[in-house]
């Protein structure tokens, strides 16, 4: 099956004071129709920059795609003009952000903001756009939608604002929705409501979703397949079940082991030592080597993303193509 989005060897550069930085250096992934792909990683791993590049929203004059390609359906997005991009952005690919307060304009009412984008993309008149806005708000479960369209963002709670953002993103029936940490700023009970809503909308419309998060619990719940990023590279890719049951990369294993669990009780948590390298001082070989418990000589050279098993890729010398996970036997010996 042809994927709806195909990212190949994507490089992103940012102009810095002391030369260019490369927050993303050569990532590959794809999204199928109707699928939810999770992108996980810690701050600075490049997950948000990747999503901005898909939307063509890298900060002008500072950030740029410096290599590779992004294909959406049968069009290559990278290299499109702003005008061409505008036809896709909002219409076919929509995005919701982490902080719903900063993504809404405080001086316009909800109806004006929602209506503007409906008029722009669907070419409706003012009256019809407002009706559509009201019905979108009802779909995302906002009570008193007729009144809410007359209110300003500050009058709504965080959960309600995120519902408005979702209504805005879904109003043009996008093929692909990029959700960048959509529930990170919300409380757990509100997060549960929003995740539930996203699942419902996805099932109804068959939208593909790229779900960017640092929360492995949310990944386990929402995603079909997961890409794990570290220091600007993809280090592992697998179906969600495979990733949690049989993680292969030492970093992924460390991440999973370091979450405190509601079910089990451990006296000590596993912790990955050290910190994420700064983009200006990337380790020369494997980027995880300085923090890795299994580091050995081969790690001076950065390993390629290998196919460990069908559909399970991993960037580690301990995992051989189609073969054994030597990390496990190493762990058993130590």
């Amino acid at each position, binding site marked *: 099956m042809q994927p709806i989005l195909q990212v190949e060897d994507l490089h992103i550069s940012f102009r810095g004071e002391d030369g260019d930085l490369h927050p993303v250096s050569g990532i590959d992934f794809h999204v199928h129709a109707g699928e939810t792909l999770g992108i996980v990683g*810690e701050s600075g791993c490049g997950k948000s920059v990747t999503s901005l590049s898909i939307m063509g929203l890298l900060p002008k004059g500072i950030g740029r795609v410096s290599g590779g390609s992004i294909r959406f359906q049968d069009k290559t997005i990278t290299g499109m003009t702003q005008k061409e991009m505008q036809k896709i952005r909002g219409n076919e690919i929509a995005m919701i952000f982490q902080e719903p307060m900063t993504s809404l304009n405080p001086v316009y009412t909800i109806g004006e903001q929602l209506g503007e984008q409906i008029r722009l993309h669907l070419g409706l008149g003012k009256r019809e756009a407002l009706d559509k806005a009201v019905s979108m708000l009802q779909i995302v479960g906002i009570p008193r939608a007729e009144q809410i369209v007359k209110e300003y963002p500050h009058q709504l709670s965080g959960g309600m604002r995120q519902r408005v953002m979702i209504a805005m993103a879904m109003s043009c029936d996008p093929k692909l929705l990029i959700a960048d940490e959509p529930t990170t700023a919300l409380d*757990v*009970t*509100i997060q549960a409501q929003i995740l539930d809503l996203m699942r419902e909308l996805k099932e109804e419309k068959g939208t593909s979703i790229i779900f960017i998060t640092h929360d492995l*619990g949310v990944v386990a719940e929402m995603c079909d397949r997961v890409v794990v990023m570290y220091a600007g590279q993809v280090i592992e890719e697998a179906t969600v079940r495979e990733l949690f049951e049989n993680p292969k990369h030492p970093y992924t294993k460390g991440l999973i082991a370091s979450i405190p669990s509601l079910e089990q009780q451990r006296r000590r948590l596993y912790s*990955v030592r050290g910190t994420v390298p700064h983009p200006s001082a990337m380790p020369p070989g494997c980027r995880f080597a300085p923090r890795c418990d299994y580091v050995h000589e081969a790690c001076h050279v950065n390993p390629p993303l290998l196919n460990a098993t069908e559909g399970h890729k991993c960037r580690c010398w301990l995992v051989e193509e189609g073969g054994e996970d030597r990390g496990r036997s190493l762990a058993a010996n130590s």
Partner: protein
Amino acid sequence: MEEALLQIHDLKKYFPVKGKWFQPTTHVKAVDGVSFSIQKGETVGLVGESGCGKSTTGRALLHLIPPTGGEVVYRGKNLSTLSNQERRLLRRELQIVFQDPYASLDPRMKIRDVLLEPLEIHGIGSRQEQLKKVEEILEIVGLGGHYANRYPHEFSGGQRQRIGIARSLILRPSLIVADEPVSALDVSIQSQILNLLQDLQEQFDLTYLFISHDLSVVKHISDRVGVMYLGRLVEFAPKEALYAAPAHPYTQALLSAAPVAKPDSKPQRIILKGDVPNPAHPPSGCAFHTRCPHVMDICKSQRPELTTIDGAGHLAACHLHHS
């Protein structure tokens, strides 16, 4: 039972909200009658969602903000009736670690000066001894003495949080209020800091009040846990009891809402309707009745008290358990 290290009785903190023309000043009851005690050497966790009053409780009990009412008794001394000078002396023993490691360190102070400040304020030791203590404490929190000459911006979030911990630890306190100390950190760093806090507790015989919105973190680190909703404790119990058999419908919903890092576990989720009500106008009776799936008539008029439900240490404030 041994006398508690810290006893909090009916603690209240109201913030005034100025009325408009000719309208009286009203109050947001951020903390409205919270009582619990902390035993020496234990960790009490306080969980709840934003605006439930958990951080205000932490600050009011340390008298970093003056409480509106209630008593806080530390080792037999009532903090509210002490003179400012006496209270300042007690600050050595009662310390706090803040959430945001970026905002809680002065960007213009070297780490050495950040850590010297508490020693200077309390007049502890000669200059030589103070500098030695700074190096020691940096080693203890896992940074190394050579970092003393640097400025906060040269550190990552996790390292800054270690500095925040070092600053509160340098006076050798007996109780530390840790207010969301790992919420701003990435998972791999979060586990480093949690392990550090546990090591320090063993090494220095510390008592913690651990405030967090993250249920699994609180479960990991606490001995007993209190759950807050709109300024009041709705449940308080030993950790095992609270997580195995939550009694209050709010605790049940909170626990079921937390995503679990296991793709195949699909817990029966209780999804609460609506948002937390505005704390300036809390609902009558039980403040949770507007969202409660088990609401009864009595809940709308009568506020349930926090009382024992098993004759032992499991307390809940819910009419379902008071028959």
